[in-house]
């Protein structure tokens, strides 16, 4: 029986090889299904993992205060909004709020992020990609980011023309590798490079500005450059421990509200909460899309069934011959079952290979980091095989139950 199975395998391989193109089209449904399920799930898992890293990165005891009213400047162009979404929400956070947050009980460190809309001129002339943020010395601790070279702004730098660059910005502004101590111009004023950040792990699908192309200057300097109109789009605050986050949020809420004349025109977010919410939405989306992709697996199975049905009709004479020389119904059945599962198996293998190729391309060309887990590969592959077997049964049964004389009589 074992050798017979091997014979069927060979016969199946022969027939698959015999009609390469037709079989490729047959497998296409399975190929697309497997590849898309694996790709979508791996992208979802990858993004979730990156968000998880971000949560642990920024720490659980970081509070973000943002202006609440999006309508303020939402008439601005959409591309602006998507790149620097914080910028377009101007207004509701004020200079006084920065002090309020600093003085609130329970806040151990805080830093405003104030955007400065201005020109930056470096070694290579005017730089259009730059994004200038005024902030306080506490920032590295709050966003848990270390410097590659030099030091961050200190308390002594307040009001001085010092700057710390993101790594991309450092490359773009200067020709030298480590431009510490070099100067460049913001709004016509000379600034001296104090330090350069390590690469910020960027998060796909997040609304954070890209810190790698950002210039950080002291908050005071930013206010001076903009004549006290720097748009504070975020204030970060940190508590001593995760336990005191909730009461601190309460007191922050109260004190800022008081400063705004009892208006609730701001939002206070916990880092873990907002990220967790995003992660939940993401997994929901991933499930939805992989469900849609799974349908293509089903359609692929139906495709296999159709081609096998045609193949059974075409090979009726062969079935007749095989039966005449002593093949039992079960042997014919297993022959056709093996053929259809071979089709779906090959489709699954090609699909997995394509999924890995797509994964490589995504890693190379985008900032997505898909995670292909073996469970997903196994699942997609297994489902495709099961689909092939289930949809292979109908044609195989049709072949097996054929009357030998009738089958012999049918000519090609």
């Amino acid at each position, binding site marked *: *029986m074992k*050798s*017979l199975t*091997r*014979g069927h395998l060979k*016969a199946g391989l*022969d*027939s698959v090889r*015999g009609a390469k193109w037709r079989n490729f089209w047959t497998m296409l449904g399975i190929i697309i299904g497997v590849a898309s399920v694996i790709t979508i799930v791996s992208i979802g898992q990858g993004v979730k993992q990156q968000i998880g890293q971000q949560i642990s990165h920024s720490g659980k005891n970081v509070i973000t205060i943002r202006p609440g009213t999006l309508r303020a400047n939402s008439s601005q162009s959409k591309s602006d909004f998507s790149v620097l979404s914080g910028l377009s929400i101007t207004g509701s956070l004020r200079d006084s709020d920065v002090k309020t947050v600093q003085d609130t009980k329970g806040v151990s460190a805080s830093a405003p992020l104030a955007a400065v809309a201005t020109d930056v001129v470096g070694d290579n002339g005017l730089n259009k990609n730059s994004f200038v943020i005024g902030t306080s010395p506490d920032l590295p601790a709050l966003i848990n980011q270390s410097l590659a070279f030099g030091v961050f702004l200190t308390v002594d730098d307040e009001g001085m023309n010092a700057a710390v660059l993101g790594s991309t910005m450092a490359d773009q502004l200067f020709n030298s590798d480590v431009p510490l101590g070099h100067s460049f111009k913001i709004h016509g004023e000379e600034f001296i490079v104090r330090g350069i950040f390590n690469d910020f792990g960027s998060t796909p699908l997040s609304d954070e500005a890209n810190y790698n192309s950002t210039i950080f200057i002291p908050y005071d300097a930013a206010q001076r450059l903009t004549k006290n109109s720097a748009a504070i789009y975020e204030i970060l605050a940190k508590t001593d421990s995760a336990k005191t986050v909730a009461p601190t949020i309460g007191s922050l809420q109260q004190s800022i509200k008081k400063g705004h004349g009892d208006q609730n025109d701001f939002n206070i977010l916990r880092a873990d909460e907002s990220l967790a919410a995003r992660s939940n939405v993401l997994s929901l989306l991933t499930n939805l899309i992989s469900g849609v992709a799974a349908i293509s697996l089903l359609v692929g199975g139906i495709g296999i069934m159709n081609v096998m049905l045609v193949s059974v009709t075409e090979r009726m*004479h*062969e079935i*007749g*011959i*095989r*039966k*005449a*020389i*002593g*093949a*039992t*119904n*079960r*042997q014919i059945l297993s022959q056709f079952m093996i053929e259809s599962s071979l089709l779906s198996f090959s489709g699954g293998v090609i699909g997995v290979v394509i999924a890995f190729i797509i994964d490589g391309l995504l890693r190379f060309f985008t900032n997505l980091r898909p995670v292909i887990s073996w469970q997903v590969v196994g699942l997609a592959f297994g489902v495709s095989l099961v689909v092939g077997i289930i949809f292979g049964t109908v044609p195989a049964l049709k072949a097996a139950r054929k009357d*030998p*004389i009738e089958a*012999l009589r049918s000519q090609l």
Partner: protein
Amino acid sequence: MALIELKEVSKVYGFGDASTLALDEATLTIEKGEFVAIMGPSGSGKSTLMNVIGLLDRPSHGSFMLDGRPVAKLRPNQAAKVRRDTIGFIFQSFNLLPRLSVLENVALPLAYKGMSLSRRLKQASNMLERVGIQKREYFLPSQLSGGQAQCAAIARALVNNPKLIIADEPTGNLDSAASRLVMELLAEIHKTGNTILFVTHNPELTRYATRVVYMHDGSIIHDEKTALGQVAATARKVLYTLTTTTEEDDLAGVSALMMALPNKPAVRAPRKAIKHRTAKSTVRRKPKSTKASK
């Protein structure tokens, strides 16, 4: 004990008004070692008889003992096993699987028996040697001549050591040289003790048989033993009244008849002359008619 015992076997196709009686209470006993030719006009039930004996078809009525075992009511899978183990089929159109090599084709029945690959290929190769086409074992069936293909089919029928070989017009698609080759091969196999049943339209081939069965309208109308190497007595009558196919044969038959008649000249020459003249006259007439129309 007889190898085949058919008792009043009938086979009805269709239902009601549309039903046809393909076999009408045929009774036939064939002993081991017989070489039986089955003759009869088309539609006389020869193929149905073969299918019933070969267990491809179940009789509607009657009993059938194959090698002492009742097989008339076997279920399809059991019938398949009996076919596999005791019957070898040879078809008019060879029926080799086109995608398999000759060797694999011959080895196929052994695969259904569950023999290991190396063993069955070896056995198939031996069988091909026996039928004389071992050199072609890796060819595809489409690369063989008709005679070679039929030899391969015979090898496939023999590879299981069947007790019974059923050949449905084995020479139907072959020229006379290839037919002789195939029949000589079957005769050789018969000498080793196999029982062979074959259907034929050609009375000449009854020379190879030890027994000839004639069928008409689903019944066995005549059954005679013949000596090997001689055309069967009844078949001999058919031999010379055979419907000929070519015009040349026709003319030869007519002229032979005319020659046999006393005091009549042979009509061959005048016939030709008439043909010639009519051909000329039509040629002549055509331009005339066109002129007249002008």
